Each structure stands twice: as C-alpha cells, then as structure tokens.
C-alpha cells in the first residue's frame, strides 16, 4: 500500500475514532459488571470484538456462568470468521501476518474494505489494515478511559449506564434491520429471550434465539 487513496484514509480514521469512543461504554460496562480494570482491558486487547465483549460482561454481570458467557460471546464471534473468509483472498497473508490480520478482522475493518471495492484490491487492503489498527488503538484507549471513569463515578445507574449499554446494542443492530423479515426476527428474539430469562440460566435465553435465526434463514426468501 505505497500510495493510499485519501478518501480511504479519511473513511478508515473516522470509523476508527467513532467506534473507538464506544469503548468508553464497554470500559464502564466491564467495571459495572464486576470485572477488574485489568480484565476489562484484556477483553479489549485479546477478544477485540465489541459484541462478544459486551456479551461476556452482560451475561456474567447478570449472574450467568462463564460457560454461558463464553458460548454467547463465541456465537456472536462467528461472523468474524465469515469476514475472514471474505478478506483472506484479498489480503493473501500467511504466518505472523495472518495472525495479526485475523485479530483485527471485525465488522468495521471488513466494512471499510468492502466499501473500497471499486478502487481495487490495494485500496481494500489499505482500508482493512488502517481501520483494523485504528479501531484497535482507539477501542483499547477508550476502554481504559471508560473503566477508570466508571471506577470514579460510583453507581452506574446514577449515570444511566444501565440503559446506555442496551441502547448501544440497539444502535449496533438497528442498521441491520433492513426489512420486515429482519425486524420480525429481532422482535421475536427479544421477546423469546426475555420470556425465557426467569426459567433457564443466564446466557442460555440469548443463545436459544440462534434457533430462531436458523429457522428464519432455512428457507430461501425472495
């Protein structure tokens, strides 16, 4: 990527910073759920997948087992594997480079890469790496900011964090609800998980909704 298109750089950096800011919410959520500063930071450094990270602190913060948390987070992490399938033929990396590429394969890096498709493979590569590293930097930085802020601020409910986290999730899923098909799936999943919550252990009501996704995705739709 010797000569990177300016538009690609601009898009990569704006996505990186905007999403990175959201790390504040995660840092705060981690502390609110009872994780230490070190544990919260390690989730951002090592797991590095927003939805999975929120799932872990959400499930365990609600009293769920580590197995439920890991299972829910991993179900949410499956799509990163699918992004890898998409990006591998474009990046063509092996060994240590593949390990780094895999770690930064997330919604944003893949999204920006796909957005550069008409500019050619080099622009796609540049978009992927810039956004991957950019989000990694800002996400981890703001995770620490949020975690330290949360420790200083006391009860998270007094600051509205208890609503900010589900609202943040809603904001993530919202752009994916393009048709009544997806909206119906989202509404049914929400209802099913809430209805099941008092009856099965925390985390499982959420995992159970993957069966709805299987049912909805089974048939070809027009």
């Amino acid at each position, binding site marked *: 990527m010797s000569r990177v298109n300016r538009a690609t750089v601009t898009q990569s950096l704006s996505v990186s910073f905007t999403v990175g800011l959201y790390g504040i919410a995660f840092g705060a959520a981690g502390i609110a759920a009872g994780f230490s500063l070190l544990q919260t930071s390690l989730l951002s450094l090592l797991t590095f997948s927003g939805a999975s990270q929120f799932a872990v602190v959400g499930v365990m913060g609600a009293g769920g087992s580590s197995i439920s948390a890991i299972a829910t987070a991993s179900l949410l992490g499956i799509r990163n594997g699918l992004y890898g399938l998409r990006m591998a033929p474009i990046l063509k990396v092996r060994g240590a480079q593949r390990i780094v590429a895999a770690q930064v394969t997330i919604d944003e890096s893949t999204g920006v890469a796909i957005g550069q498709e008409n500019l050619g493979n080099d622009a796609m590569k540049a978009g992927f790496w810039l956004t991957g590293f950019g989000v990694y930097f800002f996400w981890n930085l703001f995770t620490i900011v949020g975690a330290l802020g949360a420790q200083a601020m006391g009860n998270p409910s007094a600051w509205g964090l208890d609503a900010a986290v589900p609202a943040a999730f809603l904001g993530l899923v919202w752009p994916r609800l393009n048709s009544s098909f997806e909206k119906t799936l989202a509404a049914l999943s929400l209802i099913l998980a809430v209805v099941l919550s008092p009856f099965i252990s925390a985390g499982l009501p959420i995992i159970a909704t993957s069966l709805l*996704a299987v049912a909805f995705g089974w048939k070809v739709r027009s």
Partner: protein
Amino acid sequence: MNALWIGVIGTSVLAFALKYLGHSVPEKFLTNPRMLRINTLIPIALLSALVGVQTITEKGKWVIDQRLAGVAVALVALALKAPYFVVVISAAITSAALYRL
C-alpha cells in the same frame, strides 16, 4: 482461577480461533447459501435478545425500571436517524434522570 478470569480467557481464545479459522478455510468450502444466510441472521437474533435481557430483566427476573425508558428514548432517536452517540447519550440521560428522581 475465578469465573471472571475463565470468561475473559475463554472468550479471548475462542474469539481469536473463530477469526483465524475464517482466514484459513479454503474458498471452495464457502458455497452453501443457507449457512451464509443463517450466519447473517444469528447476530441480529443474539443482539436483539441481549437488548431485551439487559433492558427488562435483572438477575433472571423481569424488572421494569428506568432502563426501559432510556432504551425507549434510544429507539425514538434511532427512528429519527440520530447519530450513534446521540442514541447512546439520550438513553443514558433519560435513565439517569429517572433514577435520580
């Protein structure tokens, strides 16, 4: 090692394994449209479920409180095409205001 550490390490190991797996699968296996469709829908189902659980349950019980009002305001903000941070902040302000009443 306590449960939180197991959650942190287990999630991190599996998260990386899933990412790496995708980069290592030969392209020829990526052909089943049904699986692709289902895998696109799974995050929608799981994230929506998480929104519900975090908004109207607490430790396995149904609880209606300030969180529901906050998320309802976020929903309105999304419907009005507000920027992402406005969505999150409006939920926080609403919930915090009701909590402090």
